[in-house]
């Protein structure tokens, strides 16, 4: 399985904070027994991140992931957190990644952590990679003082929806609305 989450909307006014540059979680056995490490993304990871995302979406977008990486800590509007999971003994092999952002007061919402994207190498699924990444970014959000984490999933994207539900995420107080512009 897992997982691709569409982008969280709109702007924010969270003050910039330094982004994590080194390991953010000690190596630990995932639920499936694989020892995983989670660390901040590096420029060299962008190629693997692009490939993992493209395997899930069919659409390579290296510039997008590079831009997100470069936005870490650079924006006064939002703090981007970009983490990758690797095998504990092979820190240059990216098994999956997660990107989140701390946003404040969009749609009147108090500051909270948005999970923007989460994807796992198809060959590394069912090893607890997504669970480990989600737990790591939740810890980063908590460290930044956040008490709420949000994401958006397409209604018909059943497996990611089941995954986030299994992690205890519930429907929030907002409903996304849209309209065709003709």
């Amino acid at each position, binding site marked *: 399985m897992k997982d691709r989450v569409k982008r969280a909307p709109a702007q924010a006014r969270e003050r910039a904070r330094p982004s994590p540059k080194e390991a953010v979680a000690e190596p630990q056995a995932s639920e499936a027994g694989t020892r995983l490490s989670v660390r901040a993304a590096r420029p060299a990871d962008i190629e693997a991140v692009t490939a993992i995302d493209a395997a899930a979406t069919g659409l390579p977008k290296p510039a997008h992931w590079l831009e997100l990486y470069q936005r870490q800590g650079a924006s006064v509007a939002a703090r981007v957190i970009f983490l990758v999971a690797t095998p504990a003994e092979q820190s240059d092999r990216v098994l999956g990644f997660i990107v989140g952002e701390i946003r404040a007061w969009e749609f009147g919402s108090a500051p909270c952590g948005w999970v923007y994207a989460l994807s796992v190498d198809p060959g590394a699924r069912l090893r607890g990679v997504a669970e480990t990444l989600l737990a790591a970014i939740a810890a980063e959000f908590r460290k930044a003082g956040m008490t709420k984490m949000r994401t958006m999933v397409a*209604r*018909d994207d*059943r497996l990611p*929806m*089941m995954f986030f*539900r*299994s992690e*205890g995420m519930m*429907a929030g107080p907002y409903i996304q609305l849209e309209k065709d512009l003709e």
Partner: protein
Amino acid sequence: MKLQVASQLAIYSVLELIAEPNRQLTVADIAEKYAVSTNHLAKVMNVLGRAGIVRSVRGVGGGFQFCGNARRTTLLDIIELFEPRASLALQASDLGGRTAEAGALGIVLQEIDDTIRTTLGCITLATLRDLAVRERSKSRAA
């Protein structure tokens, strides 16, 4: 929308069975906890058995055992065994025929139906069990 009693009983029964996967529970065990008739519950368990979600184990200490995949079986999978699709959401009557007004009301009702089905279709038995555990902890802490 209101869940039929059979759907609720089926969900509660399966939750009881997955709470202790190695233990069999009798219809009487479950019926007593939820204060329902054993006859009614037996019919529900038969439907779950025919769907391959539970199996009955005969003999001393026998009863029902969960035999599905709790991480893959959703609430919608269970509910649809007992309720036809049409009963899940609000239904407009045929009043209005093919008028634009009836079509507009149908769009709104379809949106509600989609939301209900999406929610029920993405919550697995394991997720509901975990939610029940959290609810129990919260009520103990309160």
